[in-house]
């Protein structure tokens, strides 16, 4: 997958900071995957609706960019990440506040909802993913690499002890993981492309809709 580079995104954000509305839309498209990833994998991911909060985050970012209180694109990145975290924290607080009822069916229900990750894969997608991983494991050049992945991801073995046990350097270990991710992406793109769509179609449409909303709000008509 080839997306915009960090340098490209910095240029776009600079232009948006300069008041370029077209660049603003591009900025929203470019920042969305990262913001979504922060919300999906961040500290409070269990408690948040990542898609909703991504939109809220981008809204806050756009407002801040328009207010011209930030002058450095890199600060926009940090601001977006911090905003995503804070919104997630607030969402988590809200949910945890609701957990004060003890020993009722409600508590169980809440606990269940809390602890289940959003189910973003159907059974058939889950199978596709498992098949892709099996293909990846079969294709690995050495049994040792295969062992690294299985022991690390499945058994939860830690990196240091695995390196010691298998006689690997930490660098080699990292390389195995990086290559595995890259290869998995290729396999998934070939076999189940919808699992690899990142950003998904919503990541294009939502920022456009968001920019459009701001445009209508600012100019009052369309």
């Amino acid at each position, binding site marked *: *997958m080839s997306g915009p580079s960090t340098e490209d995104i910095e240029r776009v954000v600079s232009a948006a900071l300069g008041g370029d509305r077209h660049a603003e839309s591009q900025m929203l498209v470019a920042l969305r995957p990262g913001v979504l990833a922060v919300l999906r994998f961040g500290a409070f991911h269990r408690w948040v609706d990542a898609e909703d909060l991504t939109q809220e985050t981008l809204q806050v970012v756009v407002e801040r960019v328009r207010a011209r209180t930030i002058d450095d694109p890199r600060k926009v990145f940090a601001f977006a990440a911090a905003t995503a975290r804070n919104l997630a924290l607030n969402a988590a607080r809200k949910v*945890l506040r609701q957990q004060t009822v003890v020993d009722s069916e409600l508590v169980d229900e809440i606990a269940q909802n809390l602890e289940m990750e959003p189910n973003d894969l159907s059974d058939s997608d889950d199978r596709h993913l498992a098949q892709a991983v099996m293909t990846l494991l079969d294709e690995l050049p050495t049994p040792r690499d295969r062992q690294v992945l299985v022991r690390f991801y499945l058994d939860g073995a830690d990196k240091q002890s695995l390196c010691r046990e298998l006689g690997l350097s930490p660098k080699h270990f990292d390389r195995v993981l990086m290559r595995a991710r890259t290869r998995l992406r290729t396999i998934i793109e070939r076999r189940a492309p919808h699992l690899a769509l990142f950003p998904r179609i919503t990541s294009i449409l939502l920022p456009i809709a968001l920019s459009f909303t701001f445009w209508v709000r600012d100019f009052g008509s369309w």
Partner: protein
Amino acid sequence: MNSLDRHSLEEQTRLVSRYVAGDLSRSERAEFEAWLVASPELAAEVEMERRLRRGIASAARRGWLKRGTQTPLPSVADQRWRFAVAASVLVSLVTVGVAVVVPERETSESSDTRVAAVTTLARLAAPRTVRLGSVRGFGTSPDVIVTRSDMPRELTIEPDVMVLTCEDGSIDLECAGGTAPRTPQYSEYEMDVVYRRDSSLALRSSRQLANPGTLLSFVVSDPQKLQTGDYDLLVRGHSSDHEEVVARFWLRITDQ
């Protein structure tokens, strides 16, 4: 943040696994997330790391993958050891064979009991530890599957569910004075294993003191005694005046 420089991409990519596993410190995480926002490539990498974890877990649940069965590739020295061990095993087998062919007289009852015990032990696989936390099963599939054909002697559940709070009990990214939250939300935790079919309590662990930085660890010492079927693993937090289910996982015991 110099991590935005292009040359540090490799370094940042190395952090992906630790990030998805929730192993980064607060400051590392903040820095990594700013980088994540600026790099769709890195975001895709994070996504793929997650897919890899889920895919491996899914393959294991489907029985396509044996966990931790392979041994390291043997070096020459290892091979020598192997020959030595094989020779020892051979000698032992011959000794046992002689002992069986020329048995001592003993009561048939005690002999049967011993054989049964040995058979049961032989059937049980090595103890298994399952960490549940950052990567969890999907809502439609169990978090842990144990098959009778590969039943571990002991099943240890390590749920990463301890929420750390500030000293005043507030949940925040940063506490007063800029310190990180480090007080466990509950002082003690316990785990119930509840059989879903009739909501009966199959097992209740003893309470464990919460220790920041250490995962909770609940041991199911005789998992083979659990009936086949689905179970809820309920992790409950206890304080002096309050208790709460803080996590629920899904355990499935299958025959095959």
